[in-house]
């Protein structure tokens, strides 16, 4: 019996997932940021690194040859130099942006998660609230920054924290709600047949079932939060990486300008990588 079962498990490819890689992250389909392919060996990694180096070297070479002015597009080496030389100048702004992002995102995603978990249990309330959530998702929250800044102060962190929370919260909520709406009546009946309480059904069935979508929501929310934080700093703030973008471009210091863009890219990719690993660890059961 077990012999032939292990034969089944080993011979039919769909049961043996060790050799496959397209479903290692449940998030790739949602975000489109990853092909889902895992780096499987040293040779793969080498090829990927070589392509990246070739792209940067190609850019450098093209700028040299075409004689593109450094105030239009600085050479990668110049950007690297600026990043190295002026990092001390950038650092307070990095901290400011990260602080805004962390606080705003924490508030927004916490409220979004709690709202998603509760309103999906109350279909009528959900119908009432959903239009406003959609409004928050589709309206650019940056529009509120001038208003909030005039009320709360141009130097204050709070206008930016508020818009980051308003941008990331609904994103987390709308995705988490999709997850919480995936009720598997069979599994709930199973838990009930063992005498599960409402709380147990939530913690043991509904929440784990929703977790992959919650992680997607947290990822999308984090990226939306970053975009909104930078936008808010560009519009109405005396500090932060967004403010530096405006500052350096107005002074035609394009090496510094691109150095800031590189820093923003690193923050964004770090967001992604964090949730990639969370997803891999906690939601890898879902294809």
């Amino acid at each position: 019996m077990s012999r032939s079962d292990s034969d089944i498990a080993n011979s039919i490819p769909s049961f043996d997932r060790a050799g496959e890689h397209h479903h290692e992250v449940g998030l790739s389909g949602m975000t489109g940021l990853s092909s889902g392919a895992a780096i499987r060996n040293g040779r793969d990694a080498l090829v990927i690194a070589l392509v990246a180096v070739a792209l940067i070297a190609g850019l450098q070479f093209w700028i040299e040859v075409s004689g593109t002015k450094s105030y239009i597009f600085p050479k990668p080496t110049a950007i690297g130099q600026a990043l190295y030389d002026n990092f001390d100048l950038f650092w307070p702004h990095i901290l400011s942006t990260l602080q805004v992002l962390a606080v705003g995102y924490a508030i927004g995603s916490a409220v979004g998660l709690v709202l998603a978990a509760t309103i999906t249990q109350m279909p009528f309330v959900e119908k009432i609230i959903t239009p406003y959530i959609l409004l928050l998702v589709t309206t650019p929250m940056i529009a509120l920054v001038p208003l909030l800044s005039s009320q709360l102060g141009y130097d204050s962190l709070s206008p930016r924290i508020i818009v980051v929370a308003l941008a990331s919260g609904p994103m987390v909520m709308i995705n988490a709600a999709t997850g919480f709406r995936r009720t598997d009546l069979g599994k709930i009946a199973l838990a009930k047949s063992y005498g599960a309480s409402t709380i147990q059904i939530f913690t043991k069935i509904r929440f784990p079932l929703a977790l992959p979508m919650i992680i997607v929501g947290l990822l999308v929310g984090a990226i939306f939060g970053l975009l909104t934080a930078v936008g808010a700093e560009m519009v109405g703030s005396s500090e932060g990486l967004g403010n530096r973008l405006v500052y350096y471009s107005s002074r035609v210091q394009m090496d510094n300008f691109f150095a800031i863009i590189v820093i923003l890219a690193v923050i964004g990719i770090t967001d992604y990588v964090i949730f990639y690993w969370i997803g891999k660890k906690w939601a890898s059961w879902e294809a």
Partner: protein
Amino acid sequence: MCLNFHNWCILLQPITNPIQNPRSYFMPDSGTQRPLVTIDHATKVYKTGSGAVHALEDLSLSIDQGEFTCILGPSGCGKSTLLWAMSGLHPLTSGAITLGGSPVTAPPRQLGMIFQDANLLPWKNLWENILFPFEIRKQDSEPFHDRIRKLLDLTGLTGFETKMPRELSGGMQQRASIVRCLGFDPDVILMDEPFGALDAFTRDEMNLLIQKIWMDTGKTIIFVTHNVTEAIFLADRVVVLSPRPGRLSHIFPIDIPRPRTIDQTFERPFIEQVLEIKATIERGHPAEPVATSAQEGVTA
């Protein structure tokens, strides 16, 4: 798969102590047989948008300890409704169900359910899934580990404990759900068309497994199916329900000695019994739907 099926037949041939009447075997002190489950005038009406649907109408039945009862009927005859009412998950509109003398209002601890879908939790591995009832009941599973390991061995799942559900075939998943149910040692097992979604070979294999488990453990099993052959193969008594509203149509005692084999289901006495039960179902419902469900019974 075919090889697998023959293995099972061979496995079942040399049973050392063929139990002809497990009820008396497992209950040596059952001189005064008392029913374990009673269903008293069970009626269930579902209120839907287009009016009330009578699923069950005044159905009374009692089931003895250690008995294997199959509830058979065409689709929509209320057989699942009856089972879910017995489980305490869905209340009846009127009537009462008792288990061991006390009325069933919430899912009783000594009762286990096996569904058509294996319902393994995809985020838990096989072993964690089997311990899920203990997790919900906040009960120490340690004393049951030996029992569960034996069950895994019996169901051929030893060595798969750390596999995730989607790494297992449909038959293996359903066997895991059987282990999960038997693991906490319930007295009564309710099975709601558990093998309806499996292919015919796997289904034969599972029926042999259920027969073996029943003979080994003497559990009271109530098994809902729309497959006549499966019902006769497994049951002490086949309870036939009429089409909606579900009423008790007829009870057929099945006297074929155990262990029964799949080959027997192709022999004359067995087929005659199939035809008799089919005819009963059809008399109560001469329209086409029954003809299809009866054909399924013969071909499966």
